[in-house]
């Protein structure tokens, strides 16, 4: 594509908006206590939060991919009655305030919840206040990001390749594995990365549903929130870690998630 000439007014507005986003990050870098940053990050509460966040966000991403693929496929390819409604349901967590999502999860999965009660009474399983509960909360908010990305890719891809594979004798699972997935691979990766980033940053649903137990459910955002009052230096160091990791991931993605399949 030929590069467009930049209109000056657009340049100014774009520049100012970019500044708006850069300023908080610059502020964070300036505010950080660089002399003690490694010892701050090495404190037990910080390390536990970092480790826990890594574990829960990766688990939530895995769940989002495994559970999201079949769902994205169905929403993209199978015209069933009520499809728009189901799509709306699945995408609801995108617009729901996270604490509201947490309250909703409690209503369903707490020991007095519609499903949680049965889980506890029959199987002795309690999801609240557990790491699994934190993963559940993160998956709830992250999965929609995966579904929305992959569903769009599946809709926009050229289905003639799949038809060609069928005429050549390929079974449906073979076609999915060897034709469809490679064609939407970049969207699957982009969707997974977006889900991971969303899961990593989740606060409201986690603290409401899984609680705030150090080492078990106190993920990075929860730790930062509590540490802000006790030990602002550690909080800012942890914030910088989150910001750096997110920036690296987003920059590495570059334009991939805007690309068509």
């Amino acid at each position, binding site marked *: 594509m030929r590069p467009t000439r930049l209109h000056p007014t657009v340049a*100014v507005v774009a*520049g100012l908006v970019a500044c708006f986003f850069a300023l908080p990050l610059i502020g964070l870098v300036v505010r950080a206590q660089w002399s003690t940053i490694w010892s701050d990050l090495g404190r037990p509460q910080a390390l536990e939060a970092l480790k826990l966040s890594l574990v829960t966000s990766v688990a939530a991403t895995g769940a989002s991919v495994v559970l999201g693929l079949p769902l994205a496929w169905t929403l993209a390819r199978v015209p069933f009655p009520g499809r728009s409604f189901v799509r709306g349901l699945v995408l609801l967590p995108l617009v729901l305030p996270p604490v509201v999502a947490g309250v909703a999860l409690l209503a369903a999965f707490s020991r007095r919840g519609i499903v949680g009660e049965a889980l506890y009474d029959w199987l002795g399983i309690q999801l609240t206040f557990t790491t699994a509960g934190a993963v559940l909360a993160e998956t709830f908010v992250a999965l929609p990001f995966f579904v929305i990305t992959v569903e769009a890719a599946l809709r926009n891809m050229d289905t003639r390749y799949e038809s060609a594979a069928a005429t050549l004798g390929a079974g449906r699972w073979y076609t999915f594995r060897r034709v469809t997935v490679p064609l939407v691979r970049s969207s699957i990766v982009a969707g997974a990365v977006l889900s991971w980033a969303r899961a990593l940053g989740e606060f409201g649903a986690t603290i409401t549903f899984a609680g705030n137990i150090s080492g078990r459910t106190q993920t990075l955002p929860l730790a930062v929130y509590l540490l*802000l009052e006790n030990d602002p230096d550690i909080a800012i160091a942890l914030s910088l870690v989150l910001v750096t990791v997110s920036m690296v991931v987003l920059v590495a993605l570059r334009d991939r998630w805007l690309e068509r399949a």
Partner: protein
Amino acid sequence: MNRIASRRCASTTRRGSAAVALATLATLATLCAACGSDGPETASGSSPPSSAVAGSLTVSAAASLKVPFAKIADAFKAANPGVTDVEINFDASSALAEQIANGAPADVFASADTKNMDKLSSAGLLAGSATVFARNELTIVVKKGNPKRVASLGDLANVGVVSLCGTEVPCGRYADQVLGTASVTIPPDHITRGQNVKATLAAVAEGDAEAGIVYVTDVTDAVDAVAIPESANVVATYPAGVIGASANQETAGAFVRFLTGREGQKIMKDAGFLPPA
């Protein structure tokens, strides 16, 4: 700003330059307007604060004061018709103190402990000294019906998940003190820390926490209370002070005096708080 704009558009036409200048001016104007509004003083205009008790007031109050302060705000407005609005911001005292130290616009700060008030006064942020207006005590709360038969602090060690306030939130520090005095150790992976006392209570009332430690004044119909013996209990002291940066010091001072006055004390007593002394 203008220098950056001209560097970017070195090759524009005259019409382009005019558009750039307009856009820059518009943005600057918006930014300045945003800077200009910073708190209650704009509500009463730019005139110097009057010496009467009037205008609007912003109060930062500990979460445990939610119920009585709503009534006190109404009573204060009724007693002082010049006061247009009393806006109260409820949260953990530690969070509020941090906000005020970072320049949040508040006229009065009512804390659930002296530690957070001292934090502000030693930073020179208070106007004058703080006045203690109430005291409180802690209690154990359990699910309605006390299904786990919690009878004492010791039972908290093996009841399941216990909800306490964050370690720097006053009720969290008090709770840790109480548990320390009673030599009870709850396993750390059974303690969920709430942002403030109301969230801590909600974990027991609505969530799956088996028990929690909150103030006696926070007990609602959704939970049952189990008393803590006086020997182990802690008395929380609630001071209130006027913030030095307040533009409405007269009204702020009047509010603090109202808290220790007859009407204010009656409302606090009805809410279950202990008198200041």
